[in-house]
């Protein structure tokens, strides 16, 4: 099936001024690739600072003015030009943001869900959507500060399904929720995918992502290091990249073992493999040559020695 979204070699960088007038370019996302088919939930997993939210903003063409974007983004087979994005965002391509700060604090929830449209048809649709997510009808009349964390997330999902989206971009939709509430919110995204939409789930929570995702793309220091089927995560042997394995081993049910070090900040990226300084399988070459993103065992991996099982 034709993918609904196909990202190839996406790079995002920021122009910055450091020390007076000296301008420098700060690469934040480098050579990021992924694709989403209709009916699929693809999770993009990475720790804070790996460039996850920027990916969402790049897809919607709402990056800050001092940023530059390279690479190809195709939506339903056609390149996503700024004009096309402007026409599609908010209707076919929708964003579900993180939390209540994405709602205007001084506007009632109802008008925000309806985007200010007052026709009876829209108001009815709004009420139906609220009911679908188990929100009381008086939610419309509330201000954002009167919503609980879980209600706010459901309101944000409501804004998305008011349209008939083909691509839903969910940017960290669960932090601050307890496991049960988070599970329910993620369930709503699964429903949207089962209804035929493609869902891009951006999260730092691998465990939660695995509960609904079909595929998982792992982000490290601004690049995709592995794209794997959710089923590959049942055993570490199914995984391809040492960082993904480390993530797997760090899950509570798999031993809760962290690896030392931390992700390099943008601007301090090593020349070779970005994971090399922390990699238990690092060899001489890894420090010098930057590995290409390649197919391996039905998935994608950015490692020159993929799939080697750790002892």
């Amino acid at each position, binding site marked *: 099936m034709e993918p609904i979204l196909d990202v190839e070699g996406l790079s995002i960088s920021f122009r910055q001024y450091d020390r007076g007038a000296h301008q420098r370019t700060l690469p934040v996302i480098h050579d990021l690739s992924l694709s989403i088919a209709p009916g699929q939930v693809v999770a993009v997993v990475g720790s804070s600072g790996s460039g996850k939210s920027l990916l969402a*903003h790049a897809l919607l063409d*709402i990056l800050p003015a001092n940023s530059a974007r390279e690479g190809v983004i195709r939506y339903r087979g056609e390149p996503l030009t700024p004009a096309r994005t402007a026409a599609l*965002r908010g209707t076919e391509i*929708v*964003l579900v943001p993180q939390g209540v700060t994405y709602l*205007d*604090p*001084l506007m009632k929830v109802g008008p925000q869900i309806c985007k200010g449209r007052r026709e009876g048809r829209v108001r009815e649709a709004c009420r139906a959507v609220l009911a679908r997510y188990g929100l009381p009808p008086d939610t419309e009349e509330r*201000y954002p*500060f009167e919503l609980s964390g879980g209600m706010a997330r459901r309101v944000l999902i409501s804004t998305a399904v008011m349209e008939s989206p083909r691509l839903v971009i969910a940017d960290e939709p669960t932090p601050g929720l307890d496991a049960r509430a988070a599970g329910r919110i993620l369930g709503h995204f699964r429903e949207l995918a089962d209804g035929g939409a493609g869902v891009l789930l951006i999260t730092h929570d691998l465990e939660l992502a695995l509960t609904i995702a079909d595929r998982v793309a792992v982000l490290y220091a601004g690049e995709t290091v592995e794209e794997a089927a959710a089923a590959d995560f049942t055993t570490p042997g199914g995984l391809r990249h040492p960082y993904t394995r480390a993530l797997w081993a760090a899950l509570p049910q798999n031993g809760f073992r962290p690896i030392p070090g931390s992700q390099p900040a943008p601007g301090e990226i090593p020349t070779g493999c970005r994971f090399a300084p922390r990699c238990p399988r690092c060899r001489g070459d890894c420090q010098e040559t930057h590995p290409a993103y390649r197919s391996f065992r039905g998935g994608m991996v950015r490692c020159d020695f993929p799939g080697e099982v750790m002892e």
Partner: protein
Amino acid sequence: MKHRLQFAGKKLLRMALLLLGVSLVAFLLMSLSPLDPLQTNMGQAALGSMSEEQIQRLEEYWGVNEPLPQRYLGWLSDALRLDFGTSLLYRQPVMEVIGQRLASSLGLMVTAWVLSGVLGVTLGLLAGATRGRLPDRLIRGYCLVISSTPAFWLALLLLMIFSVWLGWLPIGLAVPIGMEASQVTWQDLLSHAILPAVTLSITGVANIALHTREKVVDVLDSDYVLFARARGESGRAILLRHGLRNILLPAITLQFTSISEIIGGSVLVEQVFSYPGLGQAAVTAGLGSDLPLLLGITVVTAAIVFLGSLSADLLYGAVDPRIRRGVARHS
């Protein structure tokens, strides 16, 4: 509703305390000044021709040697009955002088207040929306120049241009010189008020425009504006739907706190234009050692400024749902 009344009550109580403090400090400062009440009342010449005995009798009459607390309490008990004494210069009750002067200043101040508010918010909105581009730079440049220009200097400049060189507007005062009060038309009044009002407005605009601009920039950088863009709302719609709504509250605060600046500015501007308003009366009272009038003006202007802030606080409660509903929810 109950908590709103409580809130207003508390604020009014604070206002009473503040006025008490202001009057006490002003009274203290004035009693520390080298002014001799006998001399200012009688005049140097009259005092010189009096005998020791007469002077002593007068000192007793005026209460010169009474201790300070007693004098203050005497003034306070009268002031509470709105009797601020008699102005030495105008030979009228202080309240009457203030009433007349306030009436002629009010036109200036209200015009300047409204103009600077409307212009300031408009310019600030425009500058914030075009951040970093030409309109923003022009507006910011204008605001910075104006805020670093003393009001009296600007007044002199306008006076020179429009009254001296172009001759379009009168050079000062509130009515034409040598005209009977009954013959003064409203056009006369208006043409005399234009320059002082414009000067006050121009200086007021800068502050409000710069603050509004900052707020607009904050709003445009906010998560909810980012989300609105992600949902396909246009830049104009975002500014009108989210921008205006969210800068309204800080604008209200600014507008009401700017009252103090308008009053402060009017002292200088009225002086330059010889406009017989409250500001000019304050200067005259200060220079002419008219302590009762000076004290009265200090207390009355403090009350006006405080009432302005109080209105802002109360309006906030009515406009901001987080206060209106939030407080109701918790009480």
